[in-house]
C-alpha cells in the first residue's frame, strides 16, 4: 500500500516531501507545526511581560526590551500563531468537508504557507539586532522614528507573511465556490466551511489595506517618503485608519473560524443538528459585513469629532446582535441534546461564558463616552484577551482536540486533556478578569512599570500568577500531543460519531481524499446516511482516473527569494552590499515566477486500476 511506504521514508525524503508538498492535508500540518511554534514563542514573551509586572517598579527587563516584548507578543500571536493555526485547521478540514480532492490552487496553497513561514522567521530574526518596539499597531510617528531596524523587520516580515495569507484566502474562496461535491449546495455546507468562506472574503478585502499601510511605512522609513512626516505635510492618522481598516476585520478573521469550530463540536457532541443553521450563516455574513464598518472605534480618542464617534459607536454596538444570535443558537443546540463532555467539548463549553464576557465588554467599549476611560488601558487588554483567548485560542484548542484524529490519527488523551483545560481555563480568568479593574483603576496598557502605592499591586500579582497557570496548561497540552503520538493506538475513522464529510473518508486519509466523490443529500451528510442510509456516503461517480497536482519546490524557493530580498531592503541604507541581497533575492523570486509560468504543470493521474487495487 502506498500509504505504508510513505511512513518508512528516510528523514531527508520526508523533509523533501514536506518542502515540495501541495497536498492540503500536509500543508495544514505545516501550518499547525509552525503556528504552534510561534504560539509557544509568543507565550514566552507574554510570560516575560507578566514577570516584569509581578510587582511595582520591577526591573526584570529594561524599558526598551519591554517595548520590544509587547510588540513581538502581539504581532506574533495575531499574525504568526492564531491565524496560521486557523489556516492549518481550514486546510486540513475544509476540503474534506465539502468533498473535494484538494484546494483549487495547490501550488498557491504551498506558496502561501512558505511566505507566511519566511515572513515569520524574518520578523523574529529581528531579535538579533533589536526587535520592533512601536507596539503591534506600529503607530506613526513612533514607528517612523523608531531607531535601528526593528520596525523595518516588522514591515518586511508582515508584508511577506501577509501576501501568503492573502493567497490562502483567494484559494479557499475559489475552492469553496468551484469544488463542492455533487449535492453540496451552499446551504448544506458545514458551518466551519461557511466561516472559512466568509473569513476568506474578509482576508481578501482587509489585507490589501495593511499591504498599503506597510508600503507607506516602508517608504517613509527606507526611502525618505513623507507620508507620516508632519514637517512635510504628512499625516500619521492615515496609518491608523489603514491599520484599523485591516485590523478590525482581522479580529473577525480570527474569531469567525473559531465560531465555525464550536458549531461543529456542539452539534456533534450534543448529537443534534445545529440549531438555527440559516440564522447562523446569515449572522456570520452580517458580522463580517459590519466588521468593515467599525474600524474607527479603535480611534475614539484620536479626535475625530462627535459625529464620527457616534456613528462608529452605534455601528459597533450593532455587531452585538448577530453575535448574540450565535450564542443563543449554540445554547439551543445544547438544549434537548445528549451531551458528551470531553476535552474538545470542555474547550467549547468554556468558550460560552468567556466569550460572552468578552462580547459584553465589547459593547461597553463601543460606548464611546465610556471608551474615553477604557481606551488604551488594561480594560482593553482584558477585553481583547477575553475575545482572542476565550474565543480564538479556545476555538483552536477545541478544534485541535476534535480533528486531531483526522489530522494526526490519534485521539488525544482525555486525562491530560482535562488537566490542560482546567489549568489553562482557571489561569486565563485569573490573568485577565482582574485586568478590567486594573484599567479602570488607572493603569494604562503598555506600561513597563506601574508605580508603588497606586493600588495596582494585588491585581497585577494575581494576573501574573494566572499567566503561569496558562503556561502550565499549554505544556500539558504539548505533552499530550507527544504522548498520544507515541503511546496511543491509531484512532478509528470516525471516533466521535461525526456528522460531516470529513469523517466519511477512510483513516488515514488517502492523499486523493475521496476515491469517488460523495453524493450529498443534505446538511450533515454523513449523519443523514447514518440515520437514513447505510452509514456510508453514496458515491456520485464511478471509480475513474483522478487528476492530481505535482509537488513543487518552487514555492519554497520563491519565498526564500523574497526573504533574502527583504534583508536587502532593510540594510540598503547601511551598506551597498545589501543591494546584492535585494537584487539577488528579487531575481530568485521573479525567476521562480517565470519558471512556474514557463514550465507546464499538468499534474498526473491516478489510474482507475490503481485505485481499484487499493483496499477499501
Amino acid at each position, binding site marked *: 500500500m502506498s500509504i505504508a511506504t510513505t511512513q518508512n521514508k528516510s528523514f531527508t525524503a520526508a523533509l523533501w516531501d514536506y518542502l515540495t508538498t501541495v497536498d492540503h492535508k500536509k500543508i495544514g500540518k505545516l501550518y499547525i507545526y509552525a503556528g504552534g511554534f510561534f504560539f509557544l514563542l509568543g507565550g514566552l514573551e507574554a510570560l516575560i511581560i507578566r514577570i516584569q509586572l509581578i510587582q511595582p517598579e520591577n526591573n526584570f527587563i529594561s524599558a526598551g526590551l519591554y517595548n520590544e516584548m509587547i510588540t513581538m507578543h502581539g504581532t506574533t500571536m495575531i499574525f504568526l500563531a492564531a491565524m496560521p493555526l486557523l489556516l492549518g485547521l481550514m486546510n486540513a478540514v475544509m476540503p474534506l468537508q465539502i468533498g473535494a480532492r484538494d484546494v483549487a490552487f495547490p501550488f498557491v496553497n504551498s506558496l502561501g504557507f512558505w511566505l507566511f513561514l519566511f515572513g515569520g522567521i524574518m520578523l523574529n530574526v529581528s531579535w538579533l539586532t533589536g526587535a520592533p518596539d512601536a507596539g503591534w499597531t506600529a503607530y506613526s510617528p513612533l514607528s517612523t*522614528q523608531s531607531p535601528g531596524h526593528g520596525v523595518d523587520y516588522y514591515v518586511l516580515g508582515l508584508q511577506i507573511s501577509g501576501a501568503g495569507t492573502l493567497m490562502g484566502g483567494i484559494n479557499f474562496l475559489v475552492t469553496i465556490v468551484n469544488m463542492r461535491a455533487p449535492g453540496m449546495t451552499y446551504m448544506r455546507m458545514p458551518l466551519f466551511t461557511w466561516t472559512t468562506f466568509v473569513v476568506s472574503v474578509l482576508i481578501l478585502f482587509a489585507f490589501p489595506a495593511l499591504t498599503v499601510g506597510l508600503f507607506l511605512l516602508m517608504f517613509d522609513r527606507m526611502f525618505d517618503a513623507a507620508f507620516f512626516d508632519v514637517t512635510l505635510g504628512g499625516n500619521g492618522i492615515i496609518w491608523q485608519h489603514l491599520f484599523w481598516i485591516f485590523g478590525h476585520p482581522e479580529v473577525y478573521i480570527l474569531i469567525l473560524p473559531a465560531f465555525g469550530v464550536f458549531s461543529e463540536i456542539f452539534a456533534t457532541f450534543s448529537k443534534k443538528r445545529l440549531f438555527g443553521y440559516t440564522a447562523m450563516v446569515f449572522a456570520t455574513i452580517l458580522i463580517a459585513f459590519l466588521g468593515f464598518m467599525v474600524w474607527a472605534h479603535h480611534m475614539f480618542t484620536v479626535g475625530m469629532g462627535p459625529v464620527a464617534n457616534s456613528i462608529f459607536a452605534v455601528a459597533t454596538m450593532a455587531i452585538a446582535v448577530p453575535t448574540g444570535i450565535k450564542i443563543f443558537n449554540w445554547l439551543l443546540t445544547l438544549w434537548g441534546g445528549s451531551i458528551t463532555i470531553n476535552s474538545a467539548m470542555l474547550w467549547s463549553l468554556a468558550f460560552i461564558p468567556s466569550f460572552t464576557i468578552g462580547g459584553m465588554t465589547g459593547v461597553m467599549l463601543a*460606548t464611546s463616552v465610556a471608551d*474615553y476611560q477604557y481606551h488604551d488601558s488594561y480594560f482593553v487588554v482584558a477585553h481583547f484577551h477575553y475575545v482572542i483567548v476565550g474565543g480564538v485560542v479556545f476555538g483552536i484548542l477545541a478544534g485541535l482536540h476534535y480533528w486531531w484524529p483526522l489530522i494526526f490519527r490519534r485521539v488525544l488523551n482525555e486525562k491530560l486533556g482535562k488537566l490542560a483545560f482546567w489549568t489553562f481555563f482557571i489561569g486565563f480568568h485569573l490573568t485577565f478578569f482582574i485586568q478590567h479593574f486594573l484599567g479602570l483603576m488607572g493603569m494604562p496598557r503598555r506600561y*513597563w512599570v506601574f508605580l508603588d502605592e497606586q493600588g495596582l499591586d494585588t491585581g497585577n500579582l494575581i494576573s501574573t500568577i494566572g499567566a503561569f497557570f496558562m503556561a502550565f496548561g499549554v505544556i500539558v497540552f504539548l505533552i499530550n500531543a507527544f504522548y498520544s503520538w507515541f503511546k496511543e493506538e491509531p484512532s478509528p475513522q470516525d471516533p466521535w460519531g461525526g456528522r460531516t464529510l470529513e469523517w466519511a473518508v477512510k483513516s488515514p486519509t488517502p492523499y486523493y481524499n475521496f476515491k469517488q466523490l460523495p453524493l450529498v443529500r443534505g446538511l450533515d451528510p454523513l449523519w443523514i446516511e447514518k440515520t437514513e442510509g447505510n452509514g456510508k456516503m453514496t458515491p456520485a461517480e464511478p471509480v475513474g482516473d483522478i487528476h492530481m497536482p505535482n509537488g513543487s519546490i518552487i514555492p519554497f524557493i520563491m519565498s526564500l527569494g523574497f526573504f533574502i530580498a527583504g534583508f536587502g531592503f532593510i540594510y540598503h541604507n547601511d551598506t551597498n552590499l545589501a543591494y546584492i541581497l535585494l537584487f539577488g533575492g528579487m531575481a530568485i523570486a521573479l525567476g521562480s515566477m517565470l519558471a512556474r509560468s514557463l514550465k507546464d504543470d499538468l499534474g498526473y493521474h491516478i489510474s482507475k486500476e490503481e485505485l481499484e487495487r487499493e483496499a477499501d
Partner: protein
Amino acid sequence: MKGWMGKFKVLSLLSLVALFLSACGMENLTALDPKGYGAEKSLDLIILPTVIMLFVLLIVMVIFTIALVRFRKKKGQEDFVPKQVEGNKTLETVWTVIPIILIIIIAVPTIIYTFKLADETEAKDSLNVTVTGNQYWWHFNYEGQEIQTSQDLYIPVGQKVYLNMKSSDVIHSLWVPTLSGKMDVNPENENTLYIEAYEEGVYWGKCAELCGPSHSLMDFKIVVVSQEEFDQWVADLQNFDPETQPETQTAVDGRALFEENNCIACHAVGSSPVQVGPNLTNFGERSKLAGVEEMTKDKLIEWLLDPESIKPGNNMTGKYPELSEEDAALIADYLLQLKPSEITTEDAGN
C-alpha cells in the same frame, strides 16, 4: 459535571473577593470614583451597559447551566438520538429583537454625551491652556496669561478649563482618570479636551499612548485649587522675576552653574517660551520629580548625574556637560528653591 460547575463557582467567587479587596483603586487616580464632569459621565456610561450586559450574561449562564445539567448524556441511554431541531422562528425573533432594544437603550445616551463632551461653545470665555506632549513630559502654556509651567497643571475648581493639545514629537494621550477620559495628543492637529473638576485635590495624570521606552513614566498632576487660590497662584507666577537672587549662597552658586552649563538653552525659568525641556519656574513646588519620583535633593542629584537611570530614552541624557556630584548638589539647591507661589499642592483641598 458537578466538578466543573463547582470550580466555576469558586472561580467567580474568588474574582469577586479579589475585586472587593482592591476596591476602587487609589483615590485621585481611579476612574471609578470620579471627581470631574467627564469622568462622571463616563462612569454613568460604564455602569449602564455593565448592568444591561450583566443581565444578558445572567440569562446566558442560566440557560447554559440548565442545558448542561438536564441534557448531559445519561447512563444507559448511550444510543439515545435526540430530536433534530432545525430552529424556532419565535425564539430566534425574540433574541434578535431584545438585543436591538437593549442596544438602543445604550446608544441614545452614548450619542448625547459624545456630543456634550465635545462641546466647545464655552471655550472662548474659559481658561484655555495649550498643552504640549513631549517625550516624556508635559508642557502647559496658560493662554493670554504669560505663564508657562511643566508637569503640574494648576486649575480652579468648578470651572471648565479647555486644554488645547498638540504633540511636539510622537503621539501621546492625556489621561486623568478621576477627572476625565483621555484624548490623544497628536503631532499633526490640535485636539481640545475640557476638564471640570468638582473637588480640590491633586489628580494623577498619565500618558495613555505608547510613546517610547519611558511611556510608563510620563506622569503629571492636575492640581485643583479654589478660585481665590488659583488667582493668587496666577498673580504669583506672573510676578515672578527669574532675575531675583536666591537667598542661600549654595543656590546662588547653583544658579551660576545652571547658566554656565547652558541648562538655560533648553529649560526656561520664568515665562520664556523656550520649551525644549520642561519649564522650571515652579520646580521647587512640583509634587513629583520627573513625574514619578519623590521630590528630594538626593533624587534630584541622581537625576542630574544620570537621567537615563530614571527615565530611559529621555532627551536630556548626553545633552549637557558631565557634572560633578558637588556641582549637581549646588544646581539642585538652586532648583529646589524655585518656589514662586504661596499656593502649592498642599493647598489643593485635602
